[in-house]
């Protein structure tokens, strides 16, 4: 009997590990994908930034924010814009679950600066690259300096 229990547990280990390593998903309604890309293009040649509110892994709102650094190479989310977005999100029963910013001349991948300054391991870090003819949007989690890409699922609503 005990042997059977052990065998079952041993067979479960790879399954559990696999589950633990599964990359996260981020569900984003099309309207917010469009808004993020439009914001990146509008702010060009400067980096654009904004915050996303959501519940779990679903984005429920995108808040454009001013880039206080007003730079083509770095961004700083305007703290007052963050405070307003945070209050609005909490008022809607959601939370700020991540940040979006653009890379104007590099890939949609977190830079060493992005990794070093990532404040929250639970956040989604959305990058919009304008390097290529068509904008590219990708999302990542950054935990203890490790970058893991998440799959972005477009919701048609």
């Amino acid at each position, binding site marked *: 009997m005990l042997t059977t229990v052990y065998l079952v547990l041993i067979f479960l280990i790879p399954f559990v590990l696999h589950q633990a390593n599964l990359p996260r998903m981020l569900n984003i309604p099309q309207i917010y994908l469009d808004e993020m890309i439009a914001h990146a293009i509008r702010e060009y040649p400067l980096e654009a930034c904004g915050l996303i509110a959501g519940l779990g892994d679903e984005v429920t709102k995108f808040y454009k924010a001013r880039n206080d650094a007003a730079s083509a190479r770095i961004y700083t989310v305007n*703290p*007052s814009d*963050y405070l307003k977005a*945070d209050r609005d999100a909490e008022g809607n029963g959601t939370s*700020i679950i991540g940040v979006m910013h653009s890379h104007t001349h590099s890939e949609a991948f977190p830079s060493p*600066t992005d990794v070093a*300054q990532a*404040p*929250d391991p639970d956040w989604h870090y959305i990058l919009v690259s304008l390097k290529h003819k068509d904008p590219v949007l990708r999302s990542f989690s950054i935990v203890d300096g490790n970058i893991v890409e998440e799959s972005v699922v477009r919701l048609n609503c």
Partner: protein
Amino acid sequence: MAIEVRLPTVLRAAASGQASVFVEGETIGEILKALSGSFPGLGNQVVSPDGSLHRFVNVYLNDDDVRYLEKLDTKVAEGDVVSILPAVAGGSF
């Protein structure tokens, strides 16, 4: 006087998962000190060992960043809300 302090998601784990807590204090400095007293592990993420605010957090009294008020000496009044938010920054290099 108990003042509400709203915490960002990243700091809630250090406060038993609470989104906001009430602590006693007459100034922002006293409130942050009381916060560390109630939740060890929270205070040092907001205030440096030298007693100044960490540059990677922003502390607000209602709508105002306390750096533009009297910093840690900013006085608080009944009904005020203190919000702590991480500074969010990065870049392409």
